[in-house]
Structure formats: structure tokens, C-alpha cells
């Protein structure tokens, strides 16, 4: 039970103020402004208690959103709500900025009334909300009775995330497997820690109420199915992966996943995040960074870095960027690289080496000579790790989409008629090698 919700600009001026409960007064609006926004410090806690009133706050660009309460509310829920609120606003009018909020303030009040009645979160699925809250005011005047009741049953329905009667001429779906690879490697090439956080994002343009079933190369399922010859089984086991943990969109039947590990659902219309996963085992690292740093006396530093790409030669990684830190007392750097461009960026104390594209199983090298100013700083240079950014059409966790079946009792199309697209995108998270 949130007591109120306020939106401020970076100066602390109130843009939206909606109070749900009597225990929250106007002074709460000011309290937050004075104690948090005007404090102009780094936020030390996203939950602030001022005079027995708790403020849950998040910041989007320079806009503050604060949910206020005097009760022992479910903290995780309040934050989930605030994020959702941002998503909904973004879905309606784009970026969350002072201007957009001022331009849409009437609409935001309308929205707040609908998704947080008396401080209790209600259905906030954008797809459904859009059927009856529009930026042009409510369409209701022109709706027929059937349409109206369709909307209300939709809002309250068992499947709150999808409306009935969706029709497409071409039934199509897109699956994106988006992964971010995180690595910390020792100079000797030993993996200190590595994990992949993956998301499966689905865009569905399907008619009716389709039942979907998603299959991936999850070790547990494959071992469960364990049919066929021993040879086949061992082969498929080799290609399967052990996911540490996954979470699912609310449309997925969790009990079924728990018992059978099958992922079945009726998808929302349009784009949504079907699943998130976390993997730490058997990760294929798309790049290896081999650093070589040599201090020549105390005025010179020789750096040589080799990067090796480790994926199929037919694939191309893009937007490769290697950031090599330099000591604080660097006076100048001379760089030679085989591929791409490299330059020393004094303000960031680093050399940045950019390569537009690089195919798999290749290697490239950069060498640099760093001139150092004499210094009497006794503290030794801490040698921060070399970090790397990239993007490529691969899944480092080895996750593979095995199938996405679409079926349903009342559909007038079959699984074969659906056009399906699968795409893998691997990006770097924090990808660092110590030197």
C-alpha cells in the first residue's frame, strides 16, 4: 500500500503528485525535495526514511520517481512497481524527461489512477492499458457495448497480458537470444570468474490465443528425454547446457517448469521478455586478451596486447573496443596496431583500440610505448585490468533454441504456418583481463 507517488525534475520541482492515503501530507513532497534531491550527494540508499515516512526512489535520466509510505510495505513490490511505471510511461510517450512528463501530465494522472488504485498495484500490462487509456483521452464515447465489456474483461481477465480477438494476416514470431558475457581473467589466462546473463526476448504477431512451447538445450530436459542410442544421447548431452537459474515472464506456467522443466505459455502480443537466465558453467569466451606489460626503468612502459577471437570463422564480431589503462603520470604514448585504430586518451588515462569487425579464429596485436613523467608518488601503479567491448552473433552460454511450437484449440492456423525467426546476439558485459 503505497501512500503516494511523486515525480520531480532534477531541481526538485514537483511534476506529478498523487496522494492515496491520508497519512501522507503535502509536507512529504517537500521533505524528499529537501533531504534527498537538494542534498546533491550520491544516493546512499534507495530507501530513505524521513520523519517516519519512507521514500522509495529511483532516477531515470534526471527525473526522480518517489513512492511514499508510512506502512511496512513490500519493498520489492514497490520498486517493481516503479520500474513498471517507467516502462508504461516509456511505452506511451517515449523517453522519460521533464518535457514529456509535463506534456502528458493529465494522462499520467489517469494512468496512476488505473495502475495504483488506493496504493495497490493493479494490472499494468501496457498492451492491455492501451486498449482503454490513450493519449487522446478515453475513446469510450465511440465504443460499442461489446468493445467496452471486452476491455473490462480483458483488464480483469485470467490472462491479463493478452486481449482476445487479435488477428494477423501473417503469423510471425521473432526470438532474440541476447547474452552478456562477463569475465575476469588473470594475466596468466586463468578464469577468475565468468558468467553469462542471458535474456530471451520474443516478438509475437500471432492471431487468437496461441499456446506456445519453448524448448532449449537445457541439460535437465535432454537428460530426461534421454531416448535413442547411447551414442546419440551422449552427443546431445555434450551439446546441452546447465543453466544456473532462470526466471520467467508472468505468462509462463511456473508449476509446469518446476515439475517438467517445460516452458509453456500464452504470449502477450508484441514484444516481451520471455526469460532470463544465468550461466556460469562451460562458457565459451569469444575473446582472449593476452597482455604483456614491461616497465623499463621508471620512465617507460612497454605494453603489448594480443587479442584472439574464439568463435566460428564464418561469424563476424563488431564494435570491438579494447581499453588499456595507462599510469597517471603518462606523458605520451606511441601506438602501433595491426588492425583498427588506436589512440591514447589522456583524460581517461587509457589507450583505446577500436576494431570495426573481426572474424572468428583470428588474432590481432597492439604494441605501445608509454613515456612516464618522473614522480615522487610512492604508491605503485595499481595496474587496473584491460577491459573489452564487443558484439557478435553468438551465444557464449551455448544456449540453443531447439523449438518454439505454436498450437491451440481454436486457432485457424498450424505451427507450420507460423514464420519464425531466431537470432543470437552476444555482447560483452564486464569483460576484463588483469595485467
Amino acid at each position, binding site marked *: *500500500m503505497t501512500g503516494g507517488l511523486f515525480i520531480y525534475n532534477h531541481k526538485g520541482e514537483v511534476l506529478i503528485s498523487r*496522494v*492515496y*492515503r*491520508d497519512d501522507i501530507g503535502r509536507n512529504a513532497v517537500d521533505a524528499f525535495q529537501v533531504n534527498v534531491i537538494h542534498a546533491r550527494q*550520491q*544516493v546512499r*540508499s*534507495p*530507501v530513505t526514511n524521513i520523519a*517516519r515516512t*519512507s521514500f*522509495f*526512489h529511483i532516477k531515470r535520466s534526471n527525473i526522480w520517481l518517489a513512492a511514499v*509510505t*508510512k*506502512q*511496512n*510495505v*513490500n*519493498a*520489492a*513490490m514497490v*520498486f*517493481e512497481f516503479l*520500474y513498471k511505471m517507467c516502462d508504461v510511461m516509456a511505452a506511451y510517450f517515449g523517453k522519460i524527461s521533464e518535457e514529456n512528463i*509535463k*506534456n502528458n*501530465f*493529465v494522462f499520467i*494522472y489517469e494512468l496512476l*489512477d488505473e495502475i495504483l488504485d*488506493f496504493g*495497490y*498495484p493493479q*494490472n499494468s*500490462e501496457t498492451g492491455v492499458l492501451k486498449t482503454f487509456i490513450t493519449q487522446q*483521452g*478515453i475513446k469510450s*464515447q465511440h*465504443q460499442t457495448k461489446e468493445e*467496452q*465489456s471486452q*476491455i*473490462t*474483461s480483458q*483488464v*480483469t*481477465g485470467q490472462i*491479463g497480458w493478452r486481449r482476445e480477438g487479435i488477428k494477423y494476416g501473417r503469423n510471425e514470431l521473432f526470438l532474440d537470444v541476447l547474452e552478456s558475457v562477463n569475465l575476469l581473467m588473470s594475466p596468466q589466462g586463468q578464469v577468475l570468474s565468468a558468467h553469462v546473463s542471458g535474456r530471451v526476448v520474443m516478438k509475437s504477431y500471432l492471431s487468437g490465443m496461441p499456446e506456445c512451447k519453448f524448448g532449449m538445450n537445457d541439460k535437465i530436459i535432454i537428460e530426461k528425454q534421454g531416448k535413442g542410442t547411447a551414442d546419440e544421447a551422449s552427443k546431445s548431452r555434450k551439446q546441452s547446457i546447465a543453466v*544456473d*537459474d*532462470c*526466471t*520467467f515472464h*508472468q505468462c509462463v506456467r*511456473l508449476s509446469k517448469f518446476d515439475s517438467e522443466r517445460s516452458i509453456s505459455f500464452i504470449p502477450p502480443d508484441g514484444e516481451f521478455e520471455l526469460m*532470463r537466465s*544465468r550461466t556460469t558453467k562451460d562458457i565459451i569466451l569469444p575473446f582472449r586478451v593476452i597482455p604483456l606489460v614491461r616497465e623499463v626503468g621508471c620512465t617507460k612502459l612497454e605494453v603489448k596486447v594480443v587479442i584472439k577471437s574464439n568463435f566460428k570463422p564464418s561469424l563476424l564480431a563488431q564494435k570491438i573496443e579494447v581499453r588499456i589503462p595507462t599510469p597517471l603520470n603518462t606523458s605520451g604514448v606511441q601506438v602501433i596496431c595491426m588492425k583498427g585504430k588506436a589512440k591514447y586518451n589522456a583524460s581517461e588515462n587509457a589507450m583505446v583500440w577500436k576494431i570495426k569487425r573481426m572474424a572468428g579464429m583470428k588474432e590481432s596485436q597492439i604494441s605501445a610505448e608509454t613515456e612516464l613523467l618522473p614522480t615522487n608518488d610512492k604508491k605503485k601503479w*595499481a595496474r587496473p585490468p584491460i577491459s573489452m567491448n564487443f558484439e557478435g552473433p553468438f551465444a557464449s552460454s551455448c544456449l540453443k533454441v531447439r523449438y518454439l511450437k505454436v498450437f491451440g484449440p481454436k486457432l485457424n492456423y498450424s505451427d507450420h504456418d507460423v514464420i519464425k525467426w531466431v537470432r543470437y546476439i552476444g555482447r560483452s558485459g564486464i569483460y576484463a583481463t588483469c595485467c
Partner: protein
Amino acid sequence: MTDSKYFTTTKKGEIFELKAELNSDKKEKKKEAVKKVIASMTVGKDVSALFPDVVNCMQTDNLELKKLVYLYLMNYAKSQPDMAIMAVNTFVKDCEDPNPLIRALAVRTMGCIRVDKITEYLCEPLRKCLKDEDPYVRKTAAVCVAKLHDINAQLVEDQGFLDTLKDLISDSNPMVSHCHPPWDVSLSFLFAPLERMDPSICEQVTPRLSHANSAVVLSAVKVLMKFMEMLSKDLDYYGTLLKKLAPPLVTLLSAEPELQYVALRNINLIVQKRPEILKHEMKVFFVKYNDPIYVKLEKLDIMIRLASQANIAQVLAELKEYATEVDVDFVRKAVRAIGRCAIKVEQSAERCVSTLLDLIQTKVNYVVQEAIVVIKDIFRKYPNKYESVIATLCENLDSLDEPEARAAMIWIVGEYAERIDNADELLESFLEGFHDESTQVQLQLLTAIVKLFLKKPTETQELVQQVLSLATQDSDNPDLRDRGYIYWRLLSTDPVAAKEVVLAEKPLISEETDLIEPTLLDELICYIGTLASVYHKPPSAFVEGGRGVVHKSLPPRTASNESTESPETAPAGAPPGEQPDVIPAQGDLLGDLLNLDLGPPVSGPPLATSSVQMGAVDLLGGGLDSLIGGTNFVAPPTASVPANLGAPIGSGLSDLFDLTSGVGTLSGSYVAPRAVWLPAMKAKGLEISGTFTRQVGSISMDLQLTNKALQVMTDFAIQFNRNSFSLAPTAPLQVHAPLSPNQTVEISLPLSTVGSVMKMEPLNNLQVAVKNNIDVFYFSTLYPLHILFVEDGKMDRQMFLATWKDIPNENEAQFQIRDCPLNAEAASSKLQSSNIFTIAKRNVEGQDMLYQSLKLTNGIWVLAELRIQPGNPSCTVRLSLKCRAPEVSQHVYQAYETILKN
């Protein structure tokens, strides 16, 4: 369309202009004007003067305009109650609009107009809406009942809205009957685990651990944590649950930073309660460079909690990195963490100390100071081990400007004065600015110089004189003055005693000084996911007034999924009207249910609130289900009570004789020495020790309460959980005067055996709750069974024989009591004083056979055969016990053993 212009009008005469626009004939102009009004309202300007004009715009078929007017109404109705009545008609009309969205809008807004006069008019439309054909309207109306209840609970009850609501709970539409799925786990399943201790229910909760909504995940974690409380750790299932909990908790750490923070605060509680869940997951708590500071600080805390011998090398490497970061707070905490690792993991102490020394070499001021503070603690934990580093510490003496660091350094110098050649000079240097130092430093300096004097009396007499006079004559601080005088007097009267006092060996400091106190921890576990778990404080500490308490007494909604619950089942004192909170956060409800009794202040005599307190004890005793259902454990100890007829009368005479024969022991049965039942550490300074006695037929619990805290304790009360032998206090706990610090009071609490029965494991387990002005504390103790042996426990001879034969042989239990050098007479009289009566004695083949009987307060007879071999060098006595309730035999044997051996 750019509405932002509405925010910019600040000119004078604005209100007047707006008034004109509001009364304009043109619809567009009207709408514009209302928007301007709302914008002004948002910014905090008072536009209440426009009330009648805005309300006039309400009658419109433009829904957007209507919504704006409603918004205005919600804000200002309270300030203009009379005018607000003007709006009632429109609401009533809107509630009958053919469009369900408008009906819902009207009923939703109605509830937000918090004016008493209006509320009465709203009942009729609300009633209609609760029975609306449209589920959306019904849902909105249900929330409205909650709003109305908030304004006028009595009205809600009088109007019978509760019953209507109950019908809604069985509504066919899930949104109406539950809460919205992504936000709230449906209630029925959440409560199910509490009713039955059944793993299959748990299997319904575990899938929720994979929900994308972290609020749902945390609620599931909470249920499972509570559930594990009831499981034995040996069960395979317990291990399975442990394994299931770790991955979702780790996953929460990849959420947005604010949620990560909530998750980390909760994980902090979870690792304190069950460290085994995350013991292999240390790496995920390593700090990332782009984590917000609040996430970094929390991670650091958890890292220390999980630090163990297995992972200490990694942890130390990380901590060393952190100590070079930018954020001062974070760096300090990292340095402190290194010290805490040293104290926690003994094997790592040496490495930690050398890491700290490295950090001191950096000469970064705050790092040095923090390092010195923790090194002091390391000295306290491992005395005489790392003192070689003192020289390095002394080099940094001049750079210390924070009181805590100065005090720590002075403590070190004083404590190791004999090893520091120039200790006197060092301390003297501090003395110059004595009056500018903070109290902490002054006190430490005083003590350190006295220590120094006691160690090197010849050279430091002048110094000690100086500090004593500074502390006693020139200081306004009473603490300092008192300490100064005490030292002065000690030194002048008895230097030997002074040495013993001041240089006494100090207790080692404990491993973890910052653990949350166990009862609070248990309470907070019940609040996982909520604000309480973020603050690490019970809700009563930050929720105002009685509302939180009222919430706690919500009748268990467990049954509500079937809607069979009647308001009469609500506990007395709780307004039944609390029910209309139709969509409560599931966490709260569950938390309330589990916590039913931990929080509310116990007012009045404790007996009056017995039901409340019982529940609390149950909760901790692991019998959660008895709190809610109470059906599992309740089984009276024995149903068959043998042969309790006739015997007492026949034995009356011999009783008399026996009584007189045992002159010395007339006073009563054996009394065990007092044992500490509740250590002060677990009860915020209250220490309870005690024993049980039985004297001339009455049982009492002799308690000794010691206040080891620094504050006065008052308002004591005691309560027992139900137990196997119905023990209950017959009078309230009488502590006549407040218990001041370090005071001890002895109390004899008379007990009766007429309380309610619940079989405990072990049988003689007694769970007790003691309350004082600080908190409620729980402990359990085992009482010796012989306090239950009644005075008329002597059975007639014939009856004894008949009963002995009658009780089946499988009920016979054999025991041996070793090292008991008593002869038959001595044993017999000893036992007699504890109401174990010898009925007959025989001598068979050189062995003395004693046939004895005893009766428990609940009427159970126990028959015994005691075989004593006088010449036996091992002094072993054999005991056979026969009883219709064989489960007591073990405890009777223990009673025999204690009585015979003491």
C-alpha cells in the same frame, strides 16, 4: 499537444482568469482551464477557491474532462465538504452509466473523497457496484470498500459490505477474488503451508522462485524460510530446499540496483539465519566497479558474513582492492572488513595483519586510521601474537585525527606499555591537548596512563599525577571525573588491588559483534521482502500508531479462499472490519499471520493475554502449526490411567510413618542447582537462571533474574507454552521494584498443573516467554520429572502386584544407574523424600530388591523394581520400570539417577 505550458503560468490574477475560463461556454476552453488548475495543484498552489467552478464542469460527457474534475475533487473535497455534496448526484448518475469504465471510474473516485457527509450517500451506489455484472467494476468496488473502511470502519460493518466482500472472494473472476497475478501471489496457496506441514505444499511455492517479479520471488523465499524452521536438518528435503533457494537469490543480484539493494538487505538476514544456503556463492557478492555505493556497502557486509577458511584468500584479495577505491565510506568499510576477517577466520589472521600493514604504508589518512582501529580489535582477539607491528603503528601517531583512531592507538600504547620504550613520551604528547580531545580519547588516555604507571611506576609518577588532576579537577565531564577518582583512590589505597583491577586479563572479543539479535532476526525473517527487512527493524519501530498492530490481528485469511470464514472467528479486540483490505500485499498478510504475536505490546496482567503469548512461544518452538491449526501435536500424554483408585487411602498410615522417618528431608524433594536458562547475550542483557522445586505438594519455579544491561528493566511478565504436564504459573511474575543494572532478584513462581496440555519433545520440555520493558524473550528448559511426583504416590501392596502383572511386559524398561554406592535403606529414604515410595523389600541371592511406586500429577502410576547389590564393587543399581505410558520411563529413570546421586 504540449501540456507543459500549463506549468508556466504564474502571473497575478490567475485565479480570477481561470474562473472566467472555467465558466466559458466553449468545451475546449473549459478543458484547458481545468488542466491549468490541475497543473497549479500539482505544483502546490492553492486553487481551492475555484471549487464550485470546477465542480460545475463535472457534468460532461467528455471523459477526459471528467477525470480531471475528479482528480481535483479528490484533492479539495476535504477542504470544502459542503460544496463537495454538489458532486454526489453526478457520482450516483455515473454509477449507472452503461459504460463499465465510467461506472468503475465513479466508484473509484467516490472512495477517494474522504468527507464523512458524502460517504453516507455513497453506500447505495457502492452496493450496486459490488454486484455489478462487469468484473472490472466489481474489482474496483472491492477496493473502494477498503477505502471506505479506512474512513469509517463502523459504516462498512453496519452496511454489511463485509459479507458482500466475502461473496466476492469466491468470485469466478480471478482478478476480483485474488490480487493481480504479477503483483500478488494468490493468497490461498501462500497460506496453505502454514496449515499443514506438508512438503507437497512447498512444491507449490517453489515454482514461484522462477518468477520474473522479484517481489514474488522474495515472498516465496520467506515462506520457504519459515517452512525450514519446522524441518529437521537431517531430512533430505531440507537439503533440497537449501539447494533450491540459492539460485533465485543470486539471480536477484542481476536486477536493477534498487532491487539489488532490497535483495541484499534480505540476503544479509538469510545468511545470518541459514549461512549454509549461500556458502558457496561468495563470488557473486564481489563488488563491481559500476555498482552504486549502497550496493557495494551491502555486498561487503555479506562477504564478511560468508567468509570462511575455504574462501578467505579470495576475499582478502578482493578487500585489498576495495581499500584503494575512491569512496571514503566504502574504503573504510573494506579496511574494517579485513580486520573482521582476521577475527573470524583464525588461520587468516596473519595475512590480514600483513595486508593491514601494507595499507598503513599507503599513508592515506583515513585508511591508516581505520586500520589502526581494527588492529586494536585483532590484539584483543589474539593477545601476544602480533605485537611486533606496534612499532609501525607508532610511526603514524601524528597523522591520527579521528577520535576513534586516537583512542585505539592510545589503548594499544597503554596495553603494551612495557614493550614500548617511549610509551611515556607518546602518552605525554597526547596529554598536552587533553581538554580538546573527545571524551572517548580522554577516557582512554586516562586508563592508558594508569596502566603505564602500574607497569613502570618509577618513571611515570609525575605523568599519572598530571592526568589524574586533569581528569578530576579540570574536567566537567562526570564520567571522566568518576573514573579519575576511582583510579586515584585505588592507587592511593591499595596499589596491588589497583593492579589486579586495571591490568586484569580481558575477555577475548567475540567473532561477530554485529550479528542481529536472534529474536529480532527471527521476527525479521517473517518480514522478508518488506520494508522491515530493508531497515532491519521491526515494523513497530517505523510504522506509526496502532495501525500496524491492528493489522497483526487480522484473522487468518487462510480459510478465505473458500469464503467460509465468519467474522465471529476474529480474535476479540481486532476490528473485524480489517478484512476489507482486499488486495493487501501478500507479504504483509503472511507476515502478519506468522508474526501474530511477536510484536504487540502486552498490556495488563500477562494472564489476560495468554492466548497471544502462547502463540509466540509456539512459533519459536518450531510448532508453527499449533499456532495456526493446533491439531498435530496435541495429544494428551496418556489416555489410560491405571489403578488410581483406592491406593491413596490404604497408604495413608504408612505415609504418616514414612514422613516422620525421613526427618532430615522433610522439607521436600531434591532440588537441582540453578542453571542458566537464558543467557544475557540472547536477551538484551537479561539473564535468567533457575531451577524447579517441589515442597509439601506445591511445585514452584525458582528464578533468578539478573540485569546485565545498562538500562533499568521493568514490567516483567512470564508465560508458558502448553506442555506435556500442563504446568502453568498460578500467579503473575512479581518483580516489585524495577531491576537496575547489575542487580539480581530471586523469585519463586508457584506453578500448577491445571494448564492446557500439549505433548512436547522431549516430554519434559518447557517453553517459556519472558517479557520486560525491552522486549519479549523465549527460552526452553527441561524440568526434572520428580517435581511431578505427588505425595500420595504409595500404592497398596496387593494393588502393586496386580498392576505389575497387568502391565504388559513390553512396557517394561530396564536401566542401570552406575556409581551409586548407597545401600537399600539409604536409597529408599532418599527416594522417599522425592515421593518415590518403597512398598516392599526383599533380599534375593544377596541382592536387595526394592519395589516402589510413584504417581505423576496427571495420575499416571509408575511401578519400579530397584535391585541393589551391596557388595558390588561397580556400585551399579539396576532399575526396572513398568508403566502404562512407557514414554515417561526414560524421564523417571533420569529422576532416579539425579535423586540417588545427589
